[in-house]
């Protein structure tokens, strides 16, 4: 599956406003009852507010023109009662609709995050972290702004408009139609121009995404920029991104600003129509001055929300453009599906077995060619070979970060794809080459997602650590378990991060533990200690060690030599050393 969001096939990228709207509306479904109640409140509120001008018009015609002040007071009383009811319904309207907006954005936020959690590692390798972060944060924020601020106004405006439109048509159909013609022109104009406006906004969001990716990359690697005296590099790259962002923002801004003047112009034209056509009708005897005054109010009631819609329409287009980028993520699915394995259980199957495995990353060459090997329970295996030979890739396939293109990986005699993620994660521990720490404390990091020790007190945990001989590793941390870990673990050395990753994996007690150069930056004395800790693991634990330092692999039961995507048993330790030292490099 292609996970590169910036090169998804064109047919998956929808451009129509209505298509986007439809999929957005799916989010609303569970809110149906609240929406119905809210719409009732809106209808009541709008009707009451719209009846106002009508009653005022009637008062003018019936009482003011005829100089009956008592009637004026009676109608004022009626209006007061109406407005009071409207006050209450308006409160409910705002609260209910706003609540719907908040909950929709809540659901949306959660479903995006949930989707991202479901996607495999390949998705993260094919997209820039900065771009993904921008999509999830920035684009969701645009939608959230729309839902929390504009949706209510949007619906309110539409309801008021429809109500006012009905009043306009009911009071006088001819004048009504004449008044609504400019609105029709606006509608056609809006429909015609919206896709273009949206595409301008999409371009802008895209360049915002790449700008933040650029900033993120440069700032996180600032030490290289300083050490190589390339402050100008940061400036230059940023300038390009900034200029591009400026260009697209101007494009989007100019497009967004078209609606307001056009809407304004046509609403003025509508007023003029009401006035001149209305006066003509009065001269014909079909209309009254009082009705004309309230008619002008209705025209305002129709065109003011329309003008408001013009600015809302802009934020709607921005939200839709953001929605498209988000739905690109939502449209992806995990290609690592769980399958059913009907092969009969063997007696004493090997813990891990590769059968004719071929593998290559998306859009790249095949990296592993027809690999077969098996690993027995309780033994220690070493994977050695030159850099770029395929060791990490082999380990990643073992832990099912990827599925092979061809061939099968078997865990305890069963297709690894038939295990649930939960089962597999319990059985396989994998210490990655580049350790990752979450912000928090050392304790939180070594107990990350560890249900066994999660509720232990520090003292209980120290006992566990002592038993596993892990306790000595804590000495490099000033405040022991409670040492703070900043975001990304910047305050710690790589060696310290590797120690935390090591403790984290060992405490999970996996059946198969893969160490991918997991101790590369740790000094040899501490490394000896790690060796003892590994020896101390339950006897049935299978170890797979990827390392360059030979002392870390000398205790291996079996050594595999991996080079140019081929895995060959190296036989004894001595043979492996000879191969490493003298073997011809093929890559």
């Amino acid at each position, binding site marked *: 599956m292609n996970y590169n969001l910036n090169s998804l096939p064109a047919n998956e990228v929808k451009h129509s406003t209505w298509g986007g709207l439809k999929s957005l509306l799916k989010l609303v479904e569970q809110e149906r009852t609240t929406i119905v109640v809210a719409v009732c409140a809106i209808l009541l509120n709008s009707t009451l507010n719209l009846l106002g001008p009508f009653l005022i018009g009637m008062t003018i015609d019936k009482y003011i023109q005829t100089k009956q002040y008592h009637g004026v007071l009676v109608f004022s009383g009626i209006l007061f009662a109406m407005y009071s009811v409207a006050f209450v319904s308006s409160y409910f309207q705002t609260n209910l609709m706003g609540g719907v907006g908040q909950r929709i954005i809540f659901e949306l936020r959660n479903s995006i995050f949930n989707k991202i959690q479901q996607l495999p590692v390949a998705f993260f390798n094919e997209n820039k972290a900065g771009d993904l972060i921008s999509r999830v944060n920035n684009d969701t924020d645009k939608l959230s702004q729309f839902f929390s601020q504009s949706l209510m106004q949007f619906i309110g405006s539409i309801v008021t408009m429809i109500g006012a439109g009905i009043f306009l048509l009911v009071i006088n159909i001819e004048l009504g139609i004449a008044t609504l013609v400019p609105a029709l022109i606006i509608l056609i104009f809006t429909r015609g121009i919206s896709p273009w406006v949206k595409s301008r906004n999409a371009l802008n969001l895209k360049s915002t995404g790449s700008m933040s990716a650029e900033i993120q990359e440069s700032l996180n690697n600032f030490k290289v920029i300083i050490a190589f005296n390339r402050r100008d590099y940061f400036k230059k790259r940023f300038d390009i991104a900034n200029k591009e962002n400026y260009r697209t923002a101007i494009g989007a801004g100019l497009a967004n600003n*078209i609606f307001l003047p056009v809407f304004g112009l046509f609403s003025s034209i509508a007023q003029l129509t009401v006035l001149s056509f209305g006066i003509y009708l009065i001269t014909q005897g079909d209309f009254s001055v009082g009705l004309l005054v309230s008619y002008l109010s209705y025209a305002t009631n129709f065109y003011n929300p329309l003008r408001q819609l013009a600015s809302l329409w802009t934020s709607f287009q921005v939200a839709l453009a953001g929605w498209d980028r988000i739905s690109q993520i939502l449209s992806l699915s995990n290609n690592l599906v769980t399958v059913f394995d009907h092969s009969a259980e063997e007696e004493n199957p090997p813990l891990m077995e590769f059968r004719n495995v071929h593998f290559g990353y998306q859009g790249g060459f095949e990296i592993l060619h027809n690999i077969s090997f098996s690993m027995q329970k309780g033994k220690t295996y070493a994977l050695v070979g030159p850099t770029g030979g395929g060791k990490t890739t082999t380990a990643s396939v073992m832990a099912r970060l990827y599925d092979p293109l061809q061939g099968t990986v078997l865990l305890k005699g069963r297709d690894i794809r038939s295990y649930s993620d939960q089962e597999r994660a319990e059985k396989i521990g994998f210490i990655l080459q580049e350790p990752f720490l979450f912000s928090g404390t050392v304790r939180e990091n070594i107990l990350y997602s560890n249900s066994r020790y999660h509720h232990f007190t520090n003292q209980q945990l120290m006992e566990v650590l002592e038993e596993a001989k892990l306790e000595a590793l804590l000495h490099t941390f000033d405040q022991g378990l409670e040492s703070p870990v900043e975001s990304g673990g910047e305050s710690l050395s790589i060696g310290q991060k590797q120690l935390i990753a090591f403790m984290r994996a060992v405490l999970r007690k996996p059946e198969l533990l893969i160490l991918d150069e997991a101790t590369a930056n740790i000094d040899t004395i501490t490394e000896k200690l790690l060796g003892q800790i590994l020896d101390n693991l339950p006897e049935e634990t299978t170890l797979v060690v990827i390392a360059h330092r030979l002392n870390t692999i000398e205790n291996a039961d079996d050594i595999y030599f991996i080079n140019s995507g081929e895995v060959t048993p190296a036989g004894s330790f001595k043979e492996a050393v000879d191969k490493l030292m003298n073997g011809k490099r093929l890559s």
Partner: protein
Amino acid sequence: MKPDVTAQKKKSPGVFSLLKPYSLMVSLLVLFALLSNGLNLWLPKLIGGGIDAFNHGNFAYKPLLIKFTAVSFIIFLFTYLQGIVQTYTSERVARDLRTRIALKISEQSFAFIEKANPSKLLTNLTSDVDSIKLFVAQAIASIVSSIFIIIGASVLLLGINWKLGLTTIAIIPIIGGAFYIVMRKVKSLFKKSREVIDWLNKVINESILGSALIRVINSQQLEYDKFFDASNRAKDIGLSILRLFGWLIPIIVFTANMAGLTILALGGHYVISGSMTIGDFAAFNSYLALLIFPILVIGFMSNVIAQATASFGRISQVLDAQEFTETGQLTSSLSGRIELRNVSVSYGEKAALKDISFRVTPGAKIAVIGPTAAGKTQLLYLLTGLIPATSGEILYDGNPIVAYQAESFHSQVGFVFQDSIMFNMSIRENIAFSDTVTDESLEKAIATAELTDFIASLANGLNTKVSERGLSLSGGQKQRIMLARALAVDPKILLLDDFTARVDPQTESKILANINRNYRGLTLISVTQKIAAVQHYQQIILLMQSEMLAGGTHQELMESSPEYVQIFNSQQSTSNYEL
């Protein structure tokens, strides 16, 4: 949180000071806004005039049509121009502000960036600038024109009938007061919601950067739970804000309706008593509608201004920060003679290096060994000037490191970082990262780092793009590209931070031989774990817990330092295979 408070107190120039260089554009913006809004005020008057003229029987279509159409078109034109000027002004302010921040950042020291926190700086450059952009785009023009409309409509209302006018204008303080009270309560909620968003972003960022680990451990649910907590809190705050605003809108509408009612009852009275025409009565209703919207706008915009001011405060912290100034002038070539005299580095209470002294002779090979977190990387950072010494001196050829011009210094000192740092550019650009690299030195660096075959195997060769964080390369390949990057500047001094950790022994020994052959006279300081590879070095420095425990040749250390012997013994069993 503390620095925030002091910065706020310091009374930085307000967000309006940003607009000074754009005064022409801002004036144009305000002018267009005033013109279009001013003309908008005229329309109800035209309508009222039309109705009155009709009532008096002297109504004529033509002049009204012409006037009305002309005014509408002029309004259209000015609104459109306002939109264009608004877009250009706000985007230009944003672009220039970003450039200023980036320029400032690019002049800062490494320590500043680490302290300021890259993700916070990212927020400064993106969302903080956005809120200032919003301020320029919307607040300025709408506040000026809203005030203008309020004053204009009030004057017109008072002109038509001052008694009725006064009662109508009374809605301004009522709505304003309601706004003030709600906004004051909402402010603290806004601050909380900003914090929750930061929290959400942190969870999102970590879940993306740590995606591989999360999948290995299958802790997606845990991450989702973390996210859910933050997301839920964001929803709760959103609902609290809503409940407050929920009152605001009904109050405003109700107040406006009451004004309409007053106009009907009182105005009706005046019309009946003959002190007011029916056309004026209609105009009164129109002006009331005109009056409400600007009051709302000012209320919302005051919030935009508040947010922009807060953002500008955060940005000012970056802009006002003490600049890292280049004091060094020396451009002389480095011989490789280095001396450290009683150098210490500490972060607050915590000492990273204590009282380190040693000398390096030109062309010497020096190794630094020691346990995890002993301060080895800090020592290299110190030697490249990435971090300053808290006390003591670092001398290159007898001159303090700060006396050298940065460009000249960095072009003579190559540094291979321990962590893989790849930029999302071609391999060529990643290696020839400094702009002084010639094709010849690029070739030499690639050959020395044993990358020639690897690059030849790529379809696009040197022009192959490295994806971000270098995920498509193996650890060793990244490490060798980083070495080539350091060698490409043709350094006099090469600093290696645990370079051999991810490179296989065979390649490693080839590379070291290549360096000896291709870069004669190079002074090498290498942080390493393996004694065997550095036994013949002129000097080995043993660091432990921030202190320099011992320094000397392998022989000397074997005789004098029990800790060294211990490390040596820990590697003994296999050391014969390392060569």
